[in-house]
């Protein structure tokens, strides 16, 4: 069994605390993605799980066994590094066979497993090449192959696609997804800061910020019900529009008036104490549409348009030039710069966050749970 | 293979060889460390072959460019050879006082006194102060170089009508005449890599021996009179006058220090000659051009004494190697005994570059007339003194004295040079 359990895992370099007590329960066979801004400790956490960094305190269990002091090679893990980390002087075959040779497996067994992995990754005809004679995508596949042959219980990826170009990235992403399917019992932990990867690959996403877990949930949960401002802005591209607002009337639904000058009725319960509180009002660009009737949420001049073909990003100045509202509209809607636009969104697509950045949705759920 | 078949040539004392055969050293190894390399090494090996052949001892000879350094390291580190051969009494004194030499015994000293020419000069040369502070006989002189020779080309002399001078006064006249004829009297080269300067010390010593009684010379080499003594300064000055006179030396004064001593005699044999005379020891023919035949194309005369100082007789400066026991063994002792046999001398005499004061060695054995003549000079000298700079402590005799000579030919006054050298001597007392 390969569930990974982290219990108050802390890591510091000298006086510098990087991970501030991480609790996580990863079930066997799950595909977990760590996301978070650069420097938040994703790699450190992954490397701690791998055993490449010693954790400062806390408990780390793999398959139920405490592995704090177990060296990497005995943890039943395999890791794909951001920078491939191929052995430059060995052929693809030898790169993949290395761990098994070290483990003194039989020649036949090595050959079988390497060829099997190569088959999966379509590397069979490159087996005799050296890494330097391969393209970036191929190299990344070799790195994955090297991990596969180890038949690990836990598969760790550290931004495996970040060095690839767009097209390759898409292709390799799909390959990883297929790989996961072919290895249903293997737990996979994946670090990225690419949202598309996170959204498409993850069973659950862990959002990290400065060494603290901000939210854990399925992609849709995070997208639909971000627990706080940070997650709300981090998940989704372009980021959710966040506007300063004030609660006009607490309760369920809540009425808020935002900086754009308009009021909105949001079907989210707020405690009475929140009456008049300063909050943040959020709406995703893709949830905005051109208002057809007189009922609209935002009004403003079109500041700038990015035409992406099928869709366009429209930047609307709703009164605060430093906080343009972004709307993702279908590419065929005719919008002109300077034109005044009225935008609306479904009531279910609106978010409000308290002064600390916590979502009121979460408040409600917490209340329920209590 | 032995160079001369035993018993074949009557000029050798082959009886010695038969005696030697009675000594049984089978299974013993005799390591000898000496200064001879190149051609000399072949020569010494040809002599050692007899010892090996007769006694059955295995003789291992070795040498090195840095032999002075090497012998210090080897003795200091406790891995000396059986026999060390060194040309510098100063260094030998040092080794003796550190207690690494084995005394050869009074009987050997007595033997030297009796059998070597020039009174007790040679026995004295082998006597040093040991670690215990007592005088002892440590070093056996073997293979002597005659110093103070002046080399010239008989053809050139004949052609110009010059006569070999018999006195310093005649020499001075000759110099003047050569200059007047448009030639240069001397070729002088003091260059010798790390040892640059030493040829000049020989010359100064020659002058010392010819202007002062031997006792003063002895005091000088022991620094019982200082370098700044007028006697010494005078000698420095005489040499300085010659070497710094552009008219006197080929290439001018500047060339003196810069020319390698090995290259400078070649000026005697160029056409037209660059110079007419060259002052150097008996080994110098090795550096003559290849086609120069000794005796025919080149000859020598002793650096003459002053007619004004007849009381000093015919002094002679020599250098040479001394044989010491650095690790005592039966073979070492036997080897010293071997050196006391005329045969040990004759075998080398019959070849090249070897003269000996050993009176019992057969003069007819000399391989060439030149050698024989040198041998005669050696045996006939009334006063024999060893190379003074070699007698001085290494830091002076192989250091500041050399440097001083460079300064002297560079134009520094004799008085200042003497003061500098004396200072360095004071520094190591």
């Amino acid at each position, binding site marked *: 069994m390969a569930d990974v359990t982290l219990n108050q895992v802390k890591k510091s370099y000298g006086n510098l605390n990087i991970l501030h007590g991480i609790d996580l329960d990863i079930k066997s066979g799950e595909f977990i993605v760590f996301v978070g801004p650069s420097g938040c400790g994703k790699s450190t956490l992954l*490397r701690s799980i*791998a*055993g*490449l960094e010693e954790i400062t305190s806390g408990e780390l269990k793999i398959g139920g066994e405490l592995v704090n002091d177990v060296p*990497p*090679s005995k943890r039943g*893990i395999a*890791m794909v*590094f*951001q*920078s*491939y*980390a*191929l*052995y*430059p002087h060995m052929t693809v075959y030898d790169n993949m066979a*290395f*761990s098994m040779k*070290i483990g003194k497996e039989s020649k036949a067994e090595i050959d079988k497993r390497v060829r099997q992995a190569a088959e999966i990754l379509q590397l069979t005809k490159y087996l005799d090449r050296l*890494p*330097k*004679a391969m393209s970036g995508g191929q*190299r990344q596949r070799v790195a994955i192959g*090297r991990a596969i042959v180890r038949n690990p219980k836990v598969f760790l990826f550290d931004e495996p696609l970040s*060095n690839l170009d767009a097209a390759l990235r898409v292709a390799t992403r799909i390959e990883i997804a297929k790989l996961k399917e072919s290895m249903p019992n293997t737990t996979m932990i994946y670090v990225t800061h690419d949202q598309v990867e996170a959204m498409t690959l993850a069973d659950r996403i862990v959002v990290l910020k400065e060494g603290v877990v901000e939210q854990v949930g399925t992609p849709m949960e995070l997208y639909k019900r971000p627990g706080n401002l940070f997650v709300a802005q981090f998940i989704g591209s372009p980021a959710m529009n966040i506007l300063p607002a004030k609660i006009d009337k607490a309760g369920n639904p809540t009425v808020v008036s935002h900086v754009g000058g308009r009021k909105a009725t949001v079907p989210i319960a707020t405690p009475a104490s929140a009456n008049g509180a300063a909050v943040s009002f959020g709406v995703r660009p893709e949830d905005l549409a051109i208002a057809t009737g007189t009922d609209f949420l935002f009004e403003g001049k079109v500041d700038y348009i990015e035409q992406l073909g099928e869709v366009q990003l429209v930047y609307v100045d709703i009164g605060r030039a430093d906080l343009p509202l972004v709307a993702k509209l279908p590419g065929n809607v005719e919008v002109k710069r300077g034109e005044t636009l009225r935008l609306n969104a479904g009531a279910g697509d609106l978010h409000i966050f308290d002064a600390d950045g916590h979502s009121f949705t979460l408040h409600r759920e917490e209340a329920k749970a209590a | 293979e032995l160079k001369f078949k035993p018993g074949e040539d009557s000029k050798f004392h082959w009886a010695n060889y038969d005696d030697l055969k009675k000594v049984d050293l089978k299974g013993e190894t005799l390591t000898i460390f000496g*200064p001879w*390399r*190149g*051609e*000399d*090494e072949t020569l010494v090996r040809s002599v050692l072959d007899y010892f090996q052949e007769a006694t059955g001892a295995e003789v291992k000879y*070795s*040498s*090195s*460019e840095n032999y002075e350094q*090497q012998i210090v*390291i080897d003795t*200091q*580190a*406790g*891995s000396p050879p059986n026999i060390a051969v060194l040309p510098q009494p100063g260094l030998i004194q040092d080794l003796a006082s550190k207690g690494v030499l084995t005394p050869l015994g009074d009987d050997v000293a007595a033997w030297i006194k009796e059998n070597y020419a020039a009174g007790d000069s040679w026995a004295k040369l082998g006597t040093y102060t040991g670690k215990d502070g007592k005088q002892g006989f440590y070093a056996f002189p073997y293979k002597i170089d005659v110093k103070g020779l002046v080399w010239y080309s*008989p*053809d*050139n002399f004949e*052609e*110009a009508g010059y006569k070999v001078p018999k006195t310093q006064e005649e020499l001075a006249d000759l110099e003047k005449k050569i200059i007047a004829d448009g030639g240069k009297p001397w070729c002088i080269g003091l260059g*010798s*890599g790390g040892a640059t300067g030493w040829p000049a010390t020989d010359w100064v010593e020659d002058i010392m021996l010819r202007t002062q009684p031997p006792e003063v010379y002895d005091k000088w080499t022991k620094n019982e009179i200082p370098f700044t003594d007028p006697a010494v300064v005078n000698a420095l000055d005489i040499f300085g006058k010659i070497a710094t006179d552009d008219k006197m030396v080929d290439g001018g004064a500047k060339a003196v220090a810069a020319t*390698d001593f*090995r*290259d400078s005699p*070649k000026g005697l044999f160029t*056409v*037209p000659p660059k110079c007419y005379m060259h002052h150097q020891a008996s*080994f110098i023919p090795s*550096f003559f*051009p*290849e086609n120069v035949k000794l005796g*025919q*194309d080149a000859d020598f005369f002793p650096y003459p004494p002053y007619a004004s100082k007849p009381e000093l007789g015919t002094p002679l400066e020599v250098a040479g190697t001394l044989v010491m026991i650095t690790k005592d063994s039966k073979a070492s002792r036997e080897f010293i005994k071997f050196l006391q046999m005329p045969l040990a001398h004759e075998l080398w005499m019959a070849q090249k570059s070897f003269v000996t004061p050993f009176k019992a060695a057969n003069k007819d054995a000399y391989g060439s007339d030149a050698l024989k003549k040198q041998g005669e000079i050696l045996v006939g000298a009334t006063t024999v003194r060893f190379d003074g700079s070699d007698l001085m402590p290494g830091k002076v005799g192989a250091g500041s004295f050399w440097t001083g000579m460079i300064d002297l030919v560079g134009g520094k006054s004799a008085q200042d040079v003497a003061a500098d050298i004396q200072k360095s001597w004071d520094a190591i007392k």
Partner: protein
Amino acid sequence: MAASTGKSFVNRFGVHIAVLIFVVIWTIPTLGILVSSLRDKDQIIASGWWNSFSSSSQTEAGRLPPASAQTQKDGKYVIEGNVFGDGAKRAISAFGTKAAAPTQYKAGTAADLGDGVSLQVNGDGSFVLASPKAFEGDRGQRVYYASSAPPKFTTDNYDAVLFSEGIGRSFMNSLTVTIPSTIIPILIAAFAAYALAWMRFPGRALLIAVIIGLLVVPLQMSLIPLLKLYNGVGTFFGVPSKTYLGIWLAHTGFGLPFAIYLLRSYIAGLPREIMESARIDGASDFEIFVKIVLPLSFPVLASFAIFQFLWVWNDLLVAMVFLGTAPDQIVLTAKLNALLGSRGGNWEILTTSAFITIIVPLIVFFSLQRYFVRGLLAGSVKGG
């Protein structure tokens, strides 16, 4: 290299010219001894080596045969022959009988030497010395002549050095000293450098400091303490103190600080991910070192190998101290050194042996040089 599209001559050829100048300056001294080593012993110091390419006109001296060679012809005593003897002939333009006037007479004319004696030397060197009276003495008449000699090179010096006795053996001995003395420090230093760069253990920083500090220890001063030690050990175990093992270790010791200094800074620069990857793959430090670090460090190993090889190969001092001079131990430098006379100055031997000793290091340099090329790490990590 940055492309510069300037078209001027200087831009185009400036680099080539500049490099050429450096190369010429750097090569001239060496060329000098190469040429000198091919010249006649006496010529080396008679004229500059650069003169040896042009035919030179020189004035030489020769000696005619002594009186014993005379014959009687037409009532005159005649000595005939050739001034060059059996040697190579040259063209004579003028001759003379006095060193002061060595070219007094044209070749082919007869010189009157007084007393009815006449001497004629022809262009080809043949001469006739005639006198009404019988010649005496066994020193022949001296003649001087100006001749033009074509450039002359000889391999005699090489013959003398290459075929001197025991040179082959000492060549072997040198290799026996040099090869292990190069490989052993590399091995030991590489292991140590890896440990100092990538392994965690107490005292590591101190150790690095000490090693860098040891870079400066002058070799000469360690000789005596070491030799004492060797003798002690030799006596204690009853083995000779001058052995190949001893000199290997000595060279290893003297070469180690630089080796560790150089290798450590290189190995520390290898990508960390590769090491970690191998560690995850289950490789122990030993396996990481042997299978990953060693192959990847080839360029720096090659650099150090060259420097160490040069140093050991050209060393005389250490070899003389730690190794005997018997034929089974004497090294090439020592052997060549022994070819020099006791008082040195055999330029022909020095120049020739300088050239002979250079050959092996050059072979080593050229065979290792290709490992200097970059790109050994290509493809291992991003951007590679």
